[in-house]
């Protein structure tokens, strides 16, 4: 699959401060790529460089084969951008705004179809200043799609929205992917990235500290899965003695690390064979959020080195 976005050795300095400090990644066309990071990590700077809104200090950037800074005008014909907290002329309706953008881009898109696509048909003739937060974001999405873009840049599109509005935006993002568009999504919500993204990169202090699919990142950087058993504390010692398993008692429950895929079954069988009393068990594994919090925490302590994307 050809890369829609390619970034090599990207650096953005403000004076002596490197907001983005030599990052590399690439986004295959037609996939959802999620760019994660705490506030001030360099997310927005990177995104704006890709969109051609900010000039880079060093490095090579190609979006749809174009240099976003010098070939911005050409690039903007092929990308759609929804900024964080989308704002527009207060007295203008979504329908009028689409007609305006249609005239600017010289496209023939039907406002009705576009508004249906983002589930905003019922507000086609409502002025921007009368819309709710979620409706405003959908308005922004519809406008970003006016030029039928190959890449959609969504900068924290669901921040501050209620759960229902968030789910509506997710549905639109899934739809964009289905239509073969590339989606570049920055978000604060790790579950959003885990749900929607094919590839994820975590940036902190201007460096990429993890990259890959959500599952790969969890596997590489997450703690092993654990089984928690409610039952006699003696079970912990039994499992250590008989299986050599790493079993400890935590908060009155037996917690066992699952190092391999078959471990859960072996442990349950051993417990059953021990004849010791037990009532229930659960298994837990790290989420992307657990990994994110841990990685960013380690980065803050200076214990982690940046990693190159695959």
């Amino acid at each position, binding site marked *: 699959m050809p890369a829609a976005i390619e970034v090599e050795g990207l650096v953005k300095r403000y004076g002596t401060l490197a907001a983005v400090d030599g990052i590399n990644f690439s986004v295959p066309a037609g996939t959802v790529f999620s760019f994660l990071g705490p506030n001030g990590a360099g997310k927005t700077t990177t995104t*704006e460089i890709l*969109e*051609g*809104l*900010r*000039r880079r200090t060093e490095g090579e950037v190609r979006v749809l084969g174009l240099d976003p800074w010098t070939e911005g*005008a050409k690039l*903007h*014909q092929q*990308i759609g*951008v929804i*900024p964080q*907290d*989308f*704002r*527009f*002329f*207060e*007295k*203008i309706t979504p329908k*009028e705004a689409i*007609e*305006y*953008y249609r*005239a*600017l*881009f*010289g496209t023939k898109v039907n406002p009705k179809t576009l508004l249906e696509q983002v589930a905003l048909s019922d507000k086609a003739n409502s*002025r921007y200043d009368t819309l709710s937060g979620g409706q405003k974001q959908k308005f922004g999405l519809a406008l970003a799609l006016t030029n039928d873009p190959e890449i959609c840049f969504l900068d924290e599109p669901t921040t501050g929205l209620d759960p229902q509005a968030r789910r509506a935006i997710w549905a639109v993002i899934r739809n964009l992917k289905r239509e073969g568009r590339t989606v570049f999504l920055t978000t604060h919500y790790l579950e959003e990235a885990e749900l929607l993204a094919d590839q994820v990169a975590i940036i902190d202090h201007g460096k990429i500290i993890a990259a890959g699919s959500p599952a790969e990142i969890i596997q590489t950087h997450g703690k092993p899965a654990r089984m928690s058993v409610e039952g006699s504390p003696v079970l912990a010692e039994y499992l250590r003695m008989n299986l050599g398993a790493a079993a400890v008692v935590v908060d009155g429950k037996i917690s066992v690390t699952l190092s391999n895929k078959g471990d859960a079954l072996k442990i349950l069988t051993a417990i059953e064979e021990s004849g010791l009393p037990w009532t229930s068990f659960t298994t837990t594994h790290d989420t992307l959020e657990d990994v994110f919090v841990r990685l960013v925490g380690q980065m803050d302590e200076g214990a982690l080195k940046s990693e190159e994307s695959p």
Partner: protein
Amino acid sequence: MRTSHIVADFRIVARSYFRNPVALFFSLIFPIILIGMFGLIFSAAGSGSVNLVVINEDHNSPVSVAFLQALNNTTVVKVQIVSVTPQNFSSYLGANGDSVGLMIPAGFQSDYVNHTAVNLTVFSNKNDPSSAGAVSGAVQGVANEFNLRAVCTGKSCAPIVGFTLRNVGSQVYKYIDYLIPGLIGFSILTSPMFSMVDIASSYRKDGIFRELSLTPLTKSEWLISRILWYVALTFVTAAIMIGAGILLFGAHVTLTTGLIPFLIVGPFFFVSLGMLAGSVAKTPESAALIGNIITFPMMFLSGTFFQVSSMPPGLQAFARVLPLYYVIDGMNQVMLFSNTTRALTDALIVFGLSVVVFLAAIRFFKWRDE
């Protein structure tokens, strides 16, 4: 430069404007209020003593001075002596907006002493009958007093001092006539300046410029669409002001196509200047401050409410560096004095400045961060 882009943006600006009650009030109702307010204030002020412009060809002879003193004492008129030749007096009165004048002829004192009949000349204007009447009455009264004071010699006791009435040579202008071009200038200045300064900083803060930078719309197209909008608005405002001035106060202004260039270059200049001021400022607060520093001196010193010719020489010189002076002076030339040569010079000055400021505004206003 694409016309379709400018048209699309113009429609957005127009829609936003028509849906904004405050904006509509300031462009449609406020001009009438302004004309009404200033028209009333200054027409009321005019009901005091009448300004009587005098040329004394008798070279301040004691009798002529006593005559003028007596006129002043009537409190009906206020004597203002000027040095203009009798040939130019009529046109002087017309050009300076004074409607009544008095000429004391050479030899006034010797004629009076020798009991030879002598005629003063009162210049008045048919458009201002009340001032003409007041002055004629006052001159007649003082002349009678002087005639009585002269000692009758023998059988000859005929009145010595008389006067003839003459119409002044050209149209005489009242305050309201100057007020109309002045207030059109006022709205050409304030309407785009306040709004563009605000737009320049708030659109940047709200990310609307960023939004637009991602479309094929260019900065020049965007600014031209605003200029066209303010030109359209200026035509409407000017029509309202001229209409209100004529209907409410009987203003005398010439409606000529010569006015059109000023209704175009005026907004061209001030939309660009507002954008430039808003672009160089870092925050909306400093933008408003810069806007006010530029706007306020021009608002009062360019001939908006007060004629520049009535200001002290220092302020007159200062007025001539203010671009709005040329807009208002040009409109005065075409609407009042039919002086197209001077109007053309004024229009060219403003146009030249507009081009410079427009280019600077495009240069300094940023869609995106460098």
